[in-house]
């Protein structure tokens, strides 16, 4: 019993120490962001790596998710003779929930894991130590540009995912199942609101997810044990922790934004 309590206590101490380190790390990274303005090129290079290179998986997934929504939405709505509302159903589902959430999950798997592995390997191969000894702060030179690139890329990717998803829903609903094209677009136009849906859903949610996923990814890499096993564990942890964080935060944000 004592051993169990001791183990629990040790786990708790380690957990909170790590949480504390992660927060201190976060504030250091935030403090380093203004220094990126004169050298924004570093951020653009990272946006290519985390954003542009994630485009393919985002677009393909968005298309299929939109197509599935179109199909399932049509089957349900047609029972009530409300197929014309398919455009609204697809758009609202994507804008409020699926767009930001699935983009964040894909982003964690594609870009988050790559960030963790890259930073972890830089640590394991003494590149971060080497920078420190060259009087270059790795937090400013390596971490901050990657963090900002992730935070900026995530909303853009969510917008793309959502837009492609709507096209996927249109393709199935209008193209294959015969929903009226005018009704599809006009109802969507009438019911989807800029502030309540698009700003809250796609922009704010995906911005928050971008901050959390990228923070977890860069911290896990920076805090990784500098061995191949350590980097592997850190990469797995990034995907698991950020996926759970996204799903939990989605509930909180949805409750705050859409609870009427």
């Amino acid at each position, binding site marked *: 019993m004592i051993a169990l309590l001791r183990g629990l206590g040790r786990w708790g101490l380690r957990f909170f120490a790590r949480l504390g380190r992660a927060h201190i790390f976060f504030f250091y990274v935030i403090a380093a962001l203004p220094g990126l303005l004169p050298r924004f090129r570093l951020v653009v290079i990272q946006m290519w790596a985390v954003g542009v290179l994630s485009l393919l998986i985002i677009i393909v997934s968005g298309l299929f998710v939109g197509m599935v929504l179109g199909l399932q939405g049509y089957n349900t709505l047609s029972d009530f003779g409300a197929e014309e509302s398919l455009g609204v159903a697809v758009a609202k589902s994507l804008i409020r929930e699926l767009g930001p959430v699935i983009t964040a999950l894909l982003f964690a798997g594609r870009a988050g894991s790559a960030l963790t592995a890259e930073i972890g390997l*830089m640590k394991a191969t*003494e*590149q971060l130590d*080497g920078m*420190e*000894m060259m*009087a*270059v*702060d790795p937090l400013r030179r390596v971490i901050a540009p990657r963090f900002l690139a992730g935070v900026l890329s995530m909303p853009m990717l969510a917008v793309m995912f959502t837009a492609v998803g709507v096209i996927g829903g249109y393709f199935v609903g209008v193209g294959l199942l015969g929903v009226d094209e005018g009704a599809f677009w006009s109802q969507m136009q009438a019911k989807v609101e800029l502030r309540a849906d698009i700003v809250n859903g796609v922009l704010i949610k995906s911005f928050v997810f971008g901050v959390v996923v990228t923070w977890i990814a860069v911290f896990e890499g920076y805090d990784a044990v500098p061995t191949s096993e350590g980097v592997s564990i850190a990469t797995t942890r990034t995907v698991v922790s950020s996926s759970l964080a996204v799903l939990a935060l989605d509930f909180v944000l949805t409750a705050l934004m859409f609870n009427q």
Partner: protein
Amino acid sequence: MAEQTESKRPADPGHGPLVRVRGLEFSRGGRQIFDDVDIDIPRGKVTAIMGPSGSGKTTLLKLIGAQLRPESGSIVVDGVDMHNLSRQALFETRKRMGMLFQSGALLTDLSVFENVAFPLREHTRLPESMIRTLVLMKLEAVGLRSARGLMPRELSGGMARRVALARAIALDPMMIMYDEPFSGQDPISMGILVQLIRRLNDALGLTSIVVSHDVRETASIADYMYVLSDGKIVGEGTPEAMGRADSDWVRQFMEGLPDGPVPFHYPGPDYVDDLLAETRR
């Protein structure tokens, strides 16, 4: 205010040893790595820190560069107490120190040219033409001017260390610390690195600290040597004096004897007892 100014002013810049280590104590994972160690690194010389694997040689370099903090004692580099500096002041001091890591620590996403240009771009506002000239000069000094377009993955281990050396001298530092520069090198690469360390030290007026366990190569270029074991300095002197040392420990290390104060067998129960343990049971 006066006290602050006093504490930032180097105690004896330009005089005495460049690095002065006093009463250094450091432990890790419950193991004492340094126990009251004193070391002086003279200016303009090549000083070797030697000892078997795990004796804390690399740790010593990290302590000198203030990447690690000692439990007690002081490390003063050119009159500046390395462990009593703000982060900004520490980085200013590090600009005058170069370090060659065992792995080279080249930035893998940058070419050879960009790796050498990295500290220049980070710390100076020199025009591109000047950076190009400086980088080519540093690469020429290590014989790799024509390899400037290669990526780190295309370099052999020896070439990577030479590029790292060119990068370490990019800002014309006052000292360079070499962490195991010869390990895993073929005889030609090793010969090149041995010569480079000596030649660059003399030509650029550097102070070099070479951490190594390659006795012959290190002794051939060192002006002074320290031998570490069990957290203490067990021998020091010129390579010639070390070759004639009376200490069993120093002799075992210098001559590479398989048994001696450092036993061949890992400590454990008696061999015969161990073999007969099953029968006796």
